[in-house]
């Protein structure tokens, strides 16, 4: 829980240092700047899946800035933990059922 609330450190600090994303995790726009071209196979598979909250943001809400990004980041941390907890709750129920 505490870690969730602290999680925006994970984007505020890189922002202070003006760092980009992690090495080798660029989108095709960033890759074009770095490598000079975008491999054709990469384009084909890059968007094979579109996640509801890409890069831990709520991109469908049109607000920007570090404050909102940080807030959404915390929400995403909670969503992630909640989804994982639900998975393990199911497992627990399954276990109870098998024991009964």
């Amino acid at each position, binding site marked *: 829980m505490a870690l969730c609330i602290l999680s925006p450190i994970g984007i505020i600090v890189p922002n202070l240092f003006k*760092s*980009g994303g992690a090495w080798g*995790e660029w989108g095709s726009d960033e890759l074009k700047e770095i490598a000079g071209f975008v491999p054709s196979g990469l384009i084909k*598979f*890059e968007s094979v899946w579109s996640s509801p909250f890409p890069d831990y943001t709520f991109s469908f809400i049109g607000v920007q800035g570090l404050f909102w990004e940080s807030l959404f980041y915390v929400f995403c941390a909670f969503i992630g933990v909640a989804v994982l907890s639900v*998975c393990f709750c199911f497992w627990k129920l399954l276990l*109870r059922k098998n024991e009964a």
Partner: protein
Amino acid sequence: MHIPDGYLSPATCVATYAIMTPVWIYSARKVAKEVDERKIHFLALSAAFSFVIMMFNIPIPGGTTGHAVGGTLIAILLGPYSALLSISLALLVQALLFGDGGITAFAANSLVMGLIMPFTGYSLYNLLISKNASIKKKVFVSFVSAYFGINLAAFGVALLLGIQPIFFVDEKGVPLYSPFPLKITIPAMMGEHLLLFGLVEGIATALVLNYIFKLE
């Protein structure tokens, strides 16, 4: 360390899924055999911990970021098979919901962060530690094991990315997927993990274990 979709060729993705599917099934069976309700709580906690700690991005000069994973830590506490399952599940949620790491690359990411990292850290830890070692020694060895665990995983990522332009190019020789050769991926991944992220992973592991060992 999360490989996105498109960086690995379909053949590589299929190969990693072919490796990981039996590993997942074997681990799930193994863990399910010994699991009770108490252990499920610990598994849930470690999956959540791993998920959140991967959100703590640490910048390094040169414009990139990285993070700890907690693979060795979970493996020492709950065993490597439990670590594999909880980290894989955390990675699945990251890929499905947040686009962090690809779906096609999910098996590859599980291979390096769920399989290589915890099993390396765990084996090294058990190799170096005897049953009645002092807490201080255990904590120090956990630091070293976690450091090696994450670095071997980083090396795995470098290999996966770096072999793409060797095998998968179009008729003109232009890379189709990850465009960087081994001589770029290895120094890039290893440099940052040997110098910084390995230490971060080691320190995180040592701090948590120090706390838990003292409780026991």
